[in-house]
């Protein structure tokens, strides 16, 4: 198990280095000049000298290869450079916004798993019944509803039913758990729905596939109770692909957060990314893309470890 872990960890490094290099060069191709955009937006006429000085301050006057060297050396110290827009350190900006998004992501995962595993199981066990059909329609619509619209519908519902809206502004869960949860449950539900839809579909098809296996027939033939067959033999084996999907979708939650944070006015990573894109703040975009890559790689690693733990065959290969 240990050597399996080490091997997987070593494989992560070249991937991350590749992403770091690709992102750096991809973003430098950008035609717009962030300094000009920024300065002209603040005041009217800006002299060439001011622009040059600002460029110098941000280190944009150096040759690209030097910038690249600085960037790669900075990365080894987790220094992602300074935001071109605010001048703050990118790591600090990210660290400040991370907790909100992370909490919403965790809550969405819990919601999704709590909904998807039972529903997917029921749907597979009672295939083609009304339960199955209802679940499938819910799942398919979960894939079609735009995340931001679902968020807006939730707000409309809160207004219509309770005439209440969660307060704007983030309170840490450790300070005031009630205020925190009552604000973050709605965005979590709105990203969690799509997530649940994906996992439900996987749960259903994985369980249906396992139920056709020979060992299920064997278990039934030797007279094992049907409940035990589903619990011990089928569910356990069907969980493998489900774990993968839960992990993958967790890594992809940022895609949903980008729009959902906008709807609920949450100051998280998603909103930071939208702002960075609108302003052409490419050091910040660079840092965020790297963060997303790191999350993806880490989640995959975790899934692999879970897999190795659930299924000994994986460890040995």
């Amino acid at each position: 198990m240990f050597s399996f872990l080490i091997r997987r960890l070593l494989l992560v490094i070249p991937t991350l280095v590749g992403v770091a290099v690709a992102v750096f060069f991809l973003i430098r191709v950008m035609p717009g000049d962030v300094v000009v955009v920024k300065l002209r937006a603040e005041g009217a006429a800006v002299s060439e000298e001011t622009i040059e000085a600002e460029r110098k301050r941000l280190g944009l006057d150096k040759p690209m290869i030097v910038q690249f060297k600085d960037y790669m050396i900075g990365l080894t110290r987790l220094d992602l450079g300074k935001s071109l827009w605010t001048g703050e350190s990118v790591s600090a900006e990210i660290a400040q916004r991370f907790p909100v998004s992370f909490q919403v992501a965790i809550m969405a995962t819990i919601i999704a798993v709590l909904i998807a595993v039972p529903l997917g199981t029921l749907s597979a066990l009672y295939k083609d019944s009304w339960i199955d059909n209802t679940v499938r329609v819910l799942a398919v619509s979960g894939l079609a509803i735009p995340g931001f619209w679902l968020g807006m519908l939730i707000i409309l519902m809160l207004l219509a039913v309770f005439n209440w809206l969660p307060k704007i502004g983030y309170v840490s869960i450790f300070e005031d758990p009630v205020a925190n949860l009552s604000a973050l449950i709605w965005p979590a539900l709105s990203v969690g729905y799509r997530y649940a839809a994906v996992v439900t579909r996987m749960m259903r098809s994985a369980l249906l596939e396992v139920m056709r296996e020979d060992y299920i027939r064997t278990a039934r033939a030797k007279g094992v109770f049907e409940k035990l067959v589903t619990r011990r033999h089928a569910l356990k084996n069907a969980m493998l692909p489900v774990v993968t999907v839960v992990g993958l979708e967790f890594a992809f939650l940022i895609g949903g957060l980008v729009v959902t944070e906008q709807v609920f006015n949450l100051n998280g990573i998603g909103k930071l990314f939208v702002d960075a894109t609108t302003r052409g703040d490419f050091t910040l975009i660079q840092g965020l893309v790297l963060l997303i890559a790191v999350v993806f790689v880490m989640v995959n690693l975790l899934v692999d470890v879970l897999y190795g733990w659930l299924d000994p065959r994986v460890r040995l290969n």
Partner: protein
Amino acid sequence: MAVTASPSFPAEAIPKRRNPVVAFMAAQPLGFVAFLIILMYFVFALGAYWIAPYDPEAVDFSAMLGAPSGEHFFGTDQYGRDVFSRLVYGARTALAVGILSAIAGCTLGAVVGATSGYFGGRLDTFIQRIVDVMLSFPIIVLAMVVVAVLGRNAVFGVDLNLIAAIALPMVPKMARIARSSTLSIAQMPFIDAARAAGYSHPRIILRHILPNIVAPYLIMLTAFIAQAILLEASLSFLGLGVTEPTPAWGLMLTGTSADFYKAAPWMIMFPGLAITLAVFAFNLFGDSLRDWLDPKMKT
């Protein structure tokens, strides 16, 4: 000499080729419903000029935030613009951007995947590494990076860079599928024959391999159109896609409309329904097409 009548076959004996539309309708009734919904959107998009009762960009301050009525079926927005007319014209934007970007992304993906699978070796490994990296990002993240890198570039009212931004995230998935299909096709004798005949590699890829991956291509294309419509709506919602005053569904839900949750919920309900129904129809149609054309394929 009398012309002898050609031996006549009873009509049933000749295997009649069933009209593919009829065959599809019989085999996939749900898919056919989806097809009808898609057709409806096309009618709206193409006939927007005749169907929409108002000019989608006409501001009318005397009719601001009007509730749905006989005059304005879906109400009016904060500038008094007719929501229904904007939705009808929005179908044009959604379909144009959705279809163009899906075709661009799918085609590029198919060519890249077929090339990668056909040549194999180092090129294949290199391309697959890039595909791996791209697949590790959600599509909206890739699209946003492209938007940031390229900026805007409107040609004839269509933002080419937006299409590129939506097309790019589709490339790796299609490349994966095209590659795996190509690997099995490349083993076939007719590819050996083409090689023996001395055809060039590009010709073999374009004329012999690509025509054989049309089924997965079409299936992915419909699924991608659904994703592209959703992605365009999301980007426009974030202010990174289609810009005012062009009518687009995602744009109708953007920032300002949030001030009118209480005053004008129809401004939020109808555009969202339009997006959901369109995405749903294309997804369902794609699924049915898959079951019908290639039941073994998994996406």
